[in-house]
């Protein structure tokens, strides 16, 4: 187990580039979560069809 070490903080203005980068990263993370959920659903569906046989 390792704990996190806080190294600092700063203040500034949110630039358009940074805002766009965050939006892109959020979208990528959401796609990752959706892909995982789809995979889980498919696995569940396969399990059900296997039992039915």
């Amino acid at each position, binding site marked *: *187990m*390792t*704990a*996190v*070490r*806080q*190294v*600092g*903080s*700063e*203040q*500034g*203005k*949110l630039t358009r580039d*940074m*805002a766009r*980068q*965050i*939006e*892109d*990263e*959020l979208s*990528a*993370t959401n796609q*990752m979560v959706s892909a995982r959920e789809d995979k889980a659903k498919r696995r569940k569906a396969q399990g059900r069809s296997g039992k039915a046989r």
Partner: protein
Amino acid sequence: MVDLLSWLNLNTVLDFLPSLPTIQKIADILWKLIASAGVLIGGIWAYFKFIKGRTFQPNIVPKVAGEARDKDGEIFLIATTEVENVGASKVTLDHQHTVIRVLTSRALARGEEGPIEWGEKAFATRKILQHRDHLEPGGTAVDTELFQIQNDNFVALRLEVLVASTKDDKWTGVGIVNLSEGVDNTIVSGEGS
């Protein structure tokens, strides 16, 4: 004779004394000067108190803490963020851009050395503090996220908390999780700016 002299002297003195309208004018000018000086001094005081002293400048201190566990080649990271409004004004949060970012860094190949770069894009980015619309002065908000990361020879994780306000101000807090065993990662709080 003496009476006549004293009467003449009194008249001379009275001649030199300003008339009543003149006294009123002088008093009026003095009063205006004092009032102007008061306004000027008040303005200077207000400038230093509120502008230079940043009394009503929004000021947020984001802190990040947490722990990482390695289990069967998977890293389980619990990241806890604590955001405190240390300013004297209310801060309305921009929910779209108030996030925690997790960046990873991989060890260099054997024989190579030098600084290790963090990935340009975050491994994962999650919105935080969605349950809070704003932060009152002196108020604190806390949020926790859990991440699962395939340990692809990572040596450290970088956690970045980014708090954005609707006025396009942003505050960031950065924390490093050293994944090497035996490293002292005592939690240390960062100072706000």
